[in-house]
């Protein structure tokens, strides 16, 4: 396993995150792991990346903006 992923795993083990954020981090880790594979990128891996990016493109072109990307009012004092 690439050293970078070991570092990420170590940091993840040290972080106490909300359940929602943990899922995000896990998805990000899986993405990074696939991207760091050297040699031949299999058809399955290519299709997974293309599908992921294509879905992002489609969502953006449909006008979707994730809630976390919107500017919300500041917390009440």
């Amino acid at each position, binding site marked *: 396993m690439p050293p970078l992923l070991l570092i990420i795993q170590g940091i993840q083990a040290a972080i106490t*995150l909300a359940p929602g954020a943990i899922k995000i981090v896990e998805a990000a880790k899986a993405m990074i792991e696939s*991207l760091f594979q050297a040699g031949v990128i299999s058809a399955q891996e290519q299709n997974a*990346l293309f599908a992921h990016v294509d879905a992002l*493109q489609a969502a953006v072109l449909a006008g979707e903006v994730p809630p*976390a990307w919107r500017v919300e009012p500041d917390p009440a004092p």
Partner: protein
Amino acid sequence: MNPTTIRTTFRRAAWLIGLLALTALPLALTTGCGTTLAPGGAYARTNAAPDLALYRLDAAFATAHTAVDVAFQFEADNRALCWRISPQIKHSLDAIRPQATATVRAWAYARRAYLADPVPENLPALQQILAKLEQFSGAVTAALQTVPNP
């Protein structure tokens, strides 16, 4: 959770997001590095030449986008905690949010244009937009690291 623990947890989360942001740079800059595309995949269809450039751009974009998304999502999910540490965290990310949204929208249009006409002349637009998104991934990391010392 005491303030020191909160700040430590926050810094560690910022480190992780920073690592995600850093991975986008080598993916965009490396020229092949022994990477080849197996025939039949989405970037190496049997009736077209392999498009390693698009693969690398998509990979780098996915990483940069994830870094920005993780940062926005982390702040949103932990807003009260972040606000207690410093209101500047939210304000810094709020300054980036609309710009990042516009950049991703520009990328979507540029990628659609490239897929419709996959010629090298249509790559620079994607590369320039990716560079901007990578700047934002660094900026959100910096915003999350603005934790005052106790």
